[in-house]
């Protein structure tokens, strides 16, 4: 996560109130059109507001002063920023552990070498299937062969590599083939991340949510591979909270260790948070990072457990999951302070059960998927 979209980070270090994980979403622009993308539906409106190089450098410096250690360059597609190498070099010099989170589009031999030279530590590449036709269809472009080439180049340059596979109904039965491919490429960390249902993924949820049987099967395949591969490859399998009866410990708690800076400089407790209406999202253009993290109303809003309602308030598991995800609570119950409905104790849990039941009925007509592309959704209409 996250680093982005990921809930598997082994944070053995207590943040002590410091934003240890800093993610810079350098741009929302992207050549691909993934139907599960967790970027905002109205991502286009941020194009003109993107921070420039100097502004990002200021963010990097202030982040280190606040104690940030892990740094992710994400997006959108971060390779679309031609100042990426400059930012990586600056981050390295400041002492971050630098991660690039990319679809692979725009990465070539020259840029990989330049990034290596700038000191980049690690690359997370996303791949959607082991099969050209399926990947290309899923991302809405010819990208599969390119991604595989890029994966091999990354290993040839000697970077540790995380292969991130967002998992949904269309690719979950390919887990074995993807494992084989990852093994052959020499991936260090393979992350099967059942997607989280926000933004584009939520729009397309009915078509994307796998069935329980599919998940059980995929997990069994993963467990078998773990046995076989031991330390050669670390395999994560992030199961979907819809099937867990407990919510995920989202971001390890609001405003505890994660800080995301959106393309326009908004400082966010997680990259999805702008789905919650009625909150204000001040940016690094008007405020210091220190104020944004420590004092802004946004970061204080759901810090700690003062804000909790029942059943979370008196629940003995609240230290474990912090009541789940505020964005999911807002999107599915209308109030961000409610218990995440993924929890079986939530009075709104039926909305999750209904979604699961719809995923199970396999005799329904497939519906078209809505691609992440300009004009696909008119958001001003949705907000009214």
């Amino acid at each position, binding site marked *: 996560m996250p*680093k982005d979209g990921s809930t*598997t*980070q*082994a*944070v*053995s*270090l*207590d943040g002590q109130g*410091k934003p*240890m994980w800093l993610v810079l979403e350098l741009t929302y622009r992207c050549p691909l059109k993934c139907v599960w993308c967790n970027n905002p539906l109205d991502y286009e409106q941020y194009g003109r507001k993107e921070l420039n190089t100097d502004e990002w450098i200021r963010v990097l410096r202030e982040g280190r002063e606040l*104690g940030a*250690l*892990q740094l992710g360059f994400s997006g959108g597609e971060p390779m679309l920023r031609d100042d990426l190498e400059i930012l990586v070099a600056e981050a390295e010099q400041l*002492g971050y*552990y630098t*991660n690039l989170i990319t679809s692979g589009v725009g990465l070539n031999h020259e840029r990989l070498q330049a990034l290596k030279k700038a000191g980049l*530590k*690690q690359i*997370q590449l996303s791949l959607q299937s082991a099969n050209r036709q399926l990947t290309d269809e899923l991302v809405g472009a010819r990208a599969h062969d390119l991604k595989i080439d890029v994966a091999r180049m990354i290993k040839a340059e000697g970077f*540790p590599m*995380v292969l991130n596979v967002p998992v949904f109904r269309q690719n979950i039965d390919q887990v074995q083939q993807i494992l084989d491919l990852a093994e052959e490429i020499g991936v*260090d*960390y393979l992350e099967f991340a059942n997607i989280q249902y926000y933004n584009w993924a939520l729009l397309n949820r009915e078509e994307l949510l796998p069935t329980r049987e599919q998940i059980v099967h995929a997990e069994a395949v993963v467990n078998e591979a773990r046995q076989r591969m031991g*330390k050669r490859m*670390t395999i994560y399998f992030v199961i979907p909270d819809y099937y867990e009866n407990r919510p995920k410990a989202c971001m390890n708690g609001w405003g505890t260790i994660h800080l995301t800076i959106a393309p326009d400089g908004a400082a966010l407790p997680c990259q999805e948070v702008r789905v919650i209406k009625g909150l204000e999202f001040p940016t690094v253009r008007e405020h210091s990072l220190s104020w944004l993290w420590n004092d802004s109303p946004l970061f204080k809003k759901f810090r700690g457990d003062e804000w909790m309602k029942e059943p979370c308030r008196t629940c003995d598991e609240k230290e474990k999951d912090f009541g789940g995800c505020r964005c999911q609570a807002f999107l599915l119950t209308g109030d961000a302070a409610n218990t995440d409905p993924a929890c079986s104790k939530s009075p709104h849990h039926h909305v999750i059960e209904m979604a699961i039941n719809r995923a199970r009925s396999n005799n329904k007509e497939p519906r078209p998927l809505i691609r992440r592309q300009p004009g696909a959704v008119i958001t001003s209409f949705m907000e009214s």
Partner: protein
Amino acid sequence: MSENNILAPQDRPKLNPKYLLRWEKSQDAYILLYPEGVIKLNPSASEILKRCTGQLSVEDMVAELSSLFADAPDITHSIYKFLENSYAKGWIDNTGC
């Protein structure tokens, strides 16, 4: 090192190149950074990992550290235990003897 993670005195452990060990002022500690996380090390763990360069054998490490932590009980055993754990976690590799 054998498959069951048992270290021999002549083994020379080396930090896995995926991991970055460095001093972090804001934590007042050595930290181990790697793709998926951060680990804060206590002083003895830091002293051991700093010596995992692939140059030093475990026995030499024990000798050096025994003088550094003179009053720690059973330091030899703790060092072996820590190294074997680190190996199991993938923090260090063994370059053999």
